[in-house]
């Protein structure tokens, strides 16, 4: 679907992208994650044929971006970092204008405008001037123009940047609802964003891809699972029980009250589902009160990469 081969981009002496390569299959939701200045916007601008790369090639649906810019843009819906809106136009007129520029046939223009108005929950403001809208609404108008021509690929540059939590929730729901057959690329410098929306993350750092993984992979891969078990029993018995379970390693036992302890365990074997440990607790007549697994968040993985 999207294939990027050895793309580099220089702005004068500044190397914004260094030899970037990746593939995105159809239907995938991918996040570009990176701090400000990492090159996310530049990469997106190259994919939308707005900026030419200094070297390298990119293909969308098998077509070279440089040789078919107009055809490519018909397949892409793009929301730039700042929603590109005309403040003196009404929402509806703006979307109509966008539909015309994006080759939506006159016959479907009205239907398509109505469709995105309702899909992006803009019906109640459709006759308002864009200048009068709140930031959250403006962002949704931006997304509406991006999807009005039913593109196969949707590219959203920091779609929730600068919104308040409620607005962020709205925009996220909207992105999740975008039909699953579409390929979606979202950039952000906020980790939780990616965790909630994307299936895969490309982490950019100073113009280079430092990680390219499925979200679960990044979260799970290099860390062992941590387990906190609250148990009731004698301390020696608990220690004995943990010793006998081969899959887990005891990190710490914390005294809570009376005969309640919290055992902090580390899973040494990713496939294990702690059966051994549970059986061993039962054998030593240790009662399990509660169990909680602490997942490594993407955040920890991210911080590690950026160390």
């Amino acid at each position, binding site marked *: 679907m999207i294939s990027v081969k050895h793309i580099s981009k220089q702005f004068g002496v500044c190397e914004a992208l260094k030899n970037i390569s990746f593939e995105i299959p159809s239907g995938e939701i991918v996040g570009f994650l990176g701090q400000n200045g990492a090159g996310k916007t530049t990469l997106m*601008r190259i994919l*939308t*044929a*707005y*900026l030419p790369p200094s070297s390298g090639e990119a293909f969308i649906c098998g077509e070279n971006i440089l040789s078919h810019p*107009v*055809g490519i*843009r*018909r397949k*892409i819906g*793009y929301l*730039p*970092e*700042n*929603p*590109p*809106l*005309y*403040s*003196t*136009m009404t929402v509806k*007129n703006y979307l109509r*204008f*966008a539909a*015309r*520029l*994006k*080759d939506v046939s006159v016959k479907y223009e009205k239907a398509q405008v109505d469709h995105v108005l309702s899909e992006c929950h803009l019906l109640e403001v459709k006759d308002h001037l864009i200048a009068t809208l709140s930031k959250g609404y403006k962002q949704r108008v931006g997304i509406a*123009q991006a999807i009005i021509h039913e593109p196969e690929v949707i590219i959203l540059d920091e779609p929730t940047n600068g919104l308040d939590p409620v607005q962020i929730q709205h925009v996220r729901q909207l992105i999740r609802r975008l039909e699953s057959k579409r390929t979606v690329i979202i950039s952000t410098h906020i980790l939780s964003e990616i965790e909630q929306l994307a299936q895969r993350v490309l982490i950019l750092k100073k113009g280079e891809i430092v990680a390219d993984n499925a979200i679960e992979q990044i979260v799970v891969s290099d860390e062992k699972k941590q387990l906190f078990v609250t148990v009731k029993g004698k301390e020696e018995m608990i220690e004995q029980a943990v010793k006998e379970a081969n899959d887990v390693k005891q990190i710490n036992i914390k005294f809570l009250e009376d005969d309640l302890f919290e055992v902090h365990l580390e899973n040494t074997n990713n496939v294990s589902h702690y059966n051994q440990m549970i059986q061993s607790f039962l054998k030593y007549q240790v009662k399990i009160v509660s169990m909680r697994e602490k997942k490594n968040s993407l955040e920890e993985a991210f911080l590690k990469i950026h160390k």
Partner: protein
Amino acid sequence: MKKIFAIAQKELSVYFRSPIAYVVLIVTIVIFNVFFFAIIDNNEEATLRDIFKVMEFLFVFIIPILTMKVFSEEKQMGTMEFLMTTPTQNNEIVLGKYLGVLLFFSFLIILTIPYYGIIEFFSRPDRMAILTGYIGIWLEGAFFISIGLMVSSWTKSQIVAAILSYLFLFLVYFSSLADKYTNGVVKAIVKYSNVMTHSENFIVGILSSSDLIYFFSGILFCLVMTRISIDTKIWDNV
């Protein structure tokens, strides 16, 4: 073609939603009115000759105001990125915007037709000279607009666009003042490049191909330059 009209239409609707359009319209008509009656008062000659002169003088000052934001504002607002990432050719963007300003300008000219009516009513004007005069000042305005468009495509700043447009328009309009101080080839070049050398002929009723070529090639040159600056996103690189 459809997109050229869509952009032109958008351009017009943006004009009429901003105070600029109304200020320009009102100021033009008021100034025009004053001059019109002043000229009619002490000149019995029944042509619009002096009126056309006043109009072209006004255009030098008004057109940069109309064109300064055409591209600058889009770049400032980030909508240029929107336009350029839709499946629209850069040619269509340039022509759409040009057409938009041209239509607004034509509207301004149409507003002066009642004055022609007054003259027609009171005397027997030289109709041919009036027709060619209208063609001449329309072409002149179209040329000025293409200069303004080109300048606006160079920069993100409306102020810079306006100042540079004034600079260029003053050059092509007032360069006749240099006539006295030059000679030989330079004199000829200055004379040919001066816009009044050509508009004058239209105003007195002469329609010559050399004047038409001057305006058409000037317009074409500016539009091609505009297209090139959009292709290269020159405003990002300077």
